[in-house]
């Protein structure tokens, strides 16, 4: 470990105060324990100690290489134009995967919070929709399928699957899947369960 544990505690406490002051929004959605853990992780990933993450830091994770959509995930953290990621944004993105708290009504929040099922689905939708036009076109679906299935499958089969998927989901016949159609096709899947990471509670 780079630092001794007690020094880390102090630093974490100081960081926590800073976080509370600067980013009150995060504290509402993610618990303190989770923030501490994420902070530790952030520092682990931040190899050159700048306090900001860069794409290379994330892509050095070996398992992410294996992941068929690893590069898309990384680009979700680094939207086009931004080369660095600070801790607040890191937490904000990961807050999407907080288990949904169905029992507490969130009064006064204008939009659905990020951790609601809509927020989660929006995040997933953005990973499909590379060009950001709000629809998953046939080509984008094809790309995603190609990424997931690799080279084991022929072009033809991929096309037919993409074709089939679009025809099934595309209700307004615009040859692309909009967010609502995406949500509808996943209505039987328990999104809250599937897209939650427990320790982020």
């Amino acid at each position, binding site marked *: 470990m780079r630092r001794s544990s007690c020094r880390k505690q102090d630093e974490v406490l100081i960081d926590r105060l800073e976080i509370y002051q600067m980013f009150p929004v995060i504290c509402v959605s993610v618990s303190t324990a989770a923030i501490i*853990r*994420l902070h530790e*992780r952030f520092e*682990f*990933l931040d190899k050159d100690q700048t306090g900001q993450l860069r794409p290379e830091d*994330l892509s050095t*994770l070996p*398992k*992410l290489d*294996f*992941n*068929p*959509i*690893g590069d898309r*995930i990384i680009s979700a*953290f680094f939207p086009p134009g931004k080369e660095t990621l600070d801790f607040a944004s890191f937490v904000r993105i*990961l807050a999407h*995967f907080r*288990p949904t708290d169905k029992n507490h009504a969130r009064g006064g929040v204008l939009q659905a919070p990020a951790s609601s099922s809509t927020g989660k689905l929006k995040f*997933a939708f953005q*990973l*499909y929709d590379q060009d950001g036009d709000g629809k998953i076109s046939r080509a984008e*679906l094809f790309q*995603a*399928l190609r990424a*997931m*299935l*690799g080279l*084991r*499958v*022929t072009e*033809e*089969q991929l*096309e*037919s*699957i993409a*074709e*089939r*998927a679009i*025809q*099934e*989901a595309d209700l307004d016949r615009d040859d692309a899947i909009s967010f609502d159609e*995406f949500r509808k*096709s*996943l209505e*039987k*899947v*328990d999104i*809250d*369960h*599937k*897209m*939650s*990471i*427990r*320790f*982020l509670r």
Partner: protein
Amino acid sequence: MPSRGAPHSPAGQGLPERGLLLLMVLLFLQGSVLPFGAASSPDVSQPAGLNPHKVADVGHNVTKKAFPVLIFDYQHIQAPFEISLWVLLASLMKLGFHLIPRLSSIVPESCLLIVVGLLVGGLIKLAGEDVPPVLDSRLFFLCLLPPIILDAGYFLPIRPFMENLGTILMFAVVGTLWNAFFVGGLLYAVCQIQPNNPSVLHQLELLPCLLFGSIISAVDPVAVLAVFEEIHINELLHILVFGESLLNDAVTVVLYHLFEEYSGVGVVTVMDVFLGIISFLVVALGGVLVGAIYGILAAFTSRFTSHTRVIEPLFVFVYSYMAYLSAEMFHLSGIMALIACGAVMRPYVEANISHKSHTTIKYFLKMWSSVSETLIFIFLGVATVDGDHDWNWTFVTVTVILCLVARVIGVVGLTFIINNFRIVKLTTKDQFIVAYGGLRGAIAFSLGFLLDKEHFPMREMFLTAIITVIFFTVFVQGMTIKPLVELLAVKKKQEAKRSINEEIHTQFLDHLLTGIEDICGHYGHHHWKDKLNRFNKKYVKKCLIAGERSKEPQLIAFYHKMEMKHAIELVESGGGVKLPSAMPSTVSMQNIQPKKPPPAKPVERALPQLPRGREEEIRKILRSNLQRTRQRLRSYNRHTLVADPYEDGFSEFLLKKQKMMELEKKIKHMNNYLTVPAAPPDSPTMRRARLASDPQSYNVKPASDSVPSIQVDLASPQSPDSVNLMDEFRRAEQEEEDRGLMMRPPGDGHAAKDQQKLMRCLSDPGPSPDEDEDEPFLP
């Protein structure tokens, strides 16, 4: 004789009444034959069996008797005959209940079957004979129980099971232990608190009480299956209760043997408890291990069965049964072995076996488990009538109350603890259903039956109490659970099938979550699932799945299954199916969209549209010329004079081929008469006719399309219309060519490849109505 009374309806007997009558007849039959069979007690049957032979030998020395023309030799076939009769009764009962519409919606089948058993038992007793000991423990555990468990294990929905495994284990292990000790302990306490009237209960010691508690506390998979199947509750609750009933077998086995072993001695030391815990782990994990080994063996064997498809199902059944028997041999948990065997072998076996074998396995399992279940309930009824009962009001009522109370407290307490660890929490409604669904069944009875009379003088009292609890749970809880589910508006099972979108997106989300977990550095659920999947793909699938299918990604397998299913549905509904070789699109598999209009195909569009008047004329001409073949056309359609291609495609194809030959001959004839250059023999129409490599390309198309193309003038050269028709034909041909009809057969290679793909698809494990079966292994 209890008589339901034959209904007297003036207007003749309707179906429900017929069903009742059938039941009555059967009961009489059963009542008459069985006592007769039972009369020949086992020790008589042996010499009776030998007698015919002896008589034959002796016959040589004795004076000659008249040759018997007709002999009635019941003993010869007694045992198999009686077994068959019972099975027949069970099956006819099942049939009968569904013929009586109102009854089956109010009363669950299990209750009706128990009632039937009671009636049959009553009949036999009234006939004065001994009731055959039908619910013999060996028969139950070795013959009746395995099919049900195998059916459950083979079709176990793995994904919800694994996701809720922690909860299920908590309920199964901790819940059952709590139930056993609570019921046993309090029962003992209650039995001791009657100092004024020294009753029989005082003799009951702690250990037999605990033993009784452990027998009665186990939730029974057969009863749960029977009742829950009819209420169609949502997947989560179903898997919770059902999983619990399966996994508590290990606990029950250990507790039962532990207390039985030491009841004689009367004292259990700490060492024994410790050994008991170790024994539990051995029993549970050992059972699973044995099952998994046999499962892998079965999967491996199925890899080589491509040449002997006929016996494929047999491997599945025999390996599973052997897993069960092997586990029972070591007193491990046979139920867990069966579940493990079925669950492990299924993904690999399904990838290897043919469509037909898959169907066979599915239907055999369903059939056996259904018959077994029916028999078990009937036997429960019969055994109730038969056994010596020792009714003790205190004991029985206290048992029933304690069982209920223990169950409720157990479920509520455990849920409170478990909810801290669950993402999707269990609500009060869920808890209620889980508690209410804790039904006891025949396993408890059989375990009680196994008790030795010597060591347990209270055996009859135990049995009575067990039967009462079983009756209470099955009748009261079983009958009321359906209205309660409606009342509480518990979420029901969603019947719809899984779509390709769901499949794709679920996989996508899995990858996403794995990636996010990696970024967080959290070794969660998805991480391990991913690791297991990778291991599975890399090593296991290569060994256990034959040929190229081992490399096939899950999504593709799912997609193929779905397309097959749709294809079969479409053909069955008589829709317009076009096989890929006739379609010029890039879609390699059938692009069947029953809901949406199919993408326009150039072949259709290129067929010219004739003006209506012309069409009528042509049709008239053709009709008159096709007179002689009319009797061979099976379906006469006003629009086409070609028989409906869906009936017996191949013979139609031959018919058409023959007509083509005639057509070509006639055209050649006409060429001699007309100066108009006739259509070359290789005209588009001829070519298209030859294209028909599959009979189904002759679709039922509107007349305007098909008439000029195929049924061109067969009129004799003297027909006044012939010349006009030829012009028409030529014009049509030119129109076709102008529109650039795509006439070359879609590349032969393409067709061949599609045929291959289709063949492989046909050898795939086929469609399954159950949506859960569509899921890939560990999605």
